[in-house]
């Protein structure tokens, strides 16, 4: 990916933190998705306004022992994967439409 990348949670999803895993389901896909701790941080920060590189620098690298370069490369792969399943929206512009809440509180 080149330039700024903005990500937002799709409103077609439902998500909940169960134990240490973020479990996600999408209306358009019968599968159940699970995110690990790092991916969960990215998912929760996916507000459509914060660029991915800022999420990596401010959230991921601040919480986990990983270099920005490695984290960004992994994050880009994750974003592409989640986007292909329709559970994450990706754009080179800020995404202004309302996204789903990061998680449902029990």
């Amino acid at each position, binding site marked *: 990916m080149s330039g700024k990348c903005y990500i937002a949670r799709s*409103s*077609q*999803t*439902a998500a*909940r933190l*169960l*134990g*240490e*895993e973020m*479990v996600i*389901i*999408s*209306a*358009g896909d*019968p599968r*159940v998705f*699970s995110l690990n701790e790092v991916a969960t941080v990215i998912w929760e920060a996916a507000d459509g306004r914060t660029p991915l590189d800022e999420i990596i620098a401010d959230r991921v690298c601040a919480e986990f022992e990983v270099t920005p370069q490695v984290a960004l490369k992994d994050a880009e792969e994750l974003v592409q994967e989640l986007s292909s399943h329709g559970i994450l929206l990706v754009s080179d512009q800020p995404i202004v439409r309302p996204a789903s809440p990061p998680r*449902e509180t*029990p």
Partner: protein
Amino acid sequence: MTPLAAGIGRSALVIEIGGIPIRLHTDDPAFRKLLEQRYAGFVSTTSEVRFDFQIELMPPQTISPDEDVRVHWDSGRWSMERGDFRAEWDPAAASGRIRQTANPYSIDSVLRILHTLLLATEGGFLVHAASAVRNGRAFLFAGLSGAGKTTIARLAPADATLLTDEISYVRRLNDDYYAFGTPFTGELARLGENIRAPLGALYLLVQGRENKIEPISPADAARGLLANILFFARDPKLVQSVFHAACAFTDRVPVRQLTFLPDARVWEMIA
């Protein structure tokens, strides 16, 4: 009784599954008789029903048996279609219409779909699971085809009451979960008892070399349950409702993995 009321009484049949009475109207006495036999034990005499459905019987040549089920929400109505039936349900009007051929399988499918839609708004669901009541509590044994639902049901001891060997019915009532008997049968072809009991546990079935019950993570519990919940509509709000219903269920009801040998000793662990 007025002539109109007398006419309704002759042609209508109330089928109460999961404590939800639904009145079916048919002009065909033979089909009504078929329904009485198919849903024996679930036919109710109540006059207080949640919904009325008019059944219109179609000639057999209109069947297209290879079509998949399609369920969608449009203009305040649910539409349910397959090769052998077309149905509409207007929740606000508490009524609907079913067009099908004279067979018990089409109406069975419509009722399953209808109950999944009803339960999704109430925190309940239908799930691929055998279920039985023992010592006053209900136990669910979930798994897709071949997991062992019928085997578990067949091995149940005499003091267990079978609710179903195929499709279990779960409702949330006052923050507690109950399993209800259903007429939805699997290989046993035996209708469940029309009773309910508070849920004791959900077991995710795995066949193995020994009988054992193991704890699983909350995420695995939700995944295991979601994989077995009957899901017909891809409407986003409905999908979200079912997801949160499954998560809420796993918060309150113990979910375990049950590995079992195909013999009756597995029931020594279920009480």
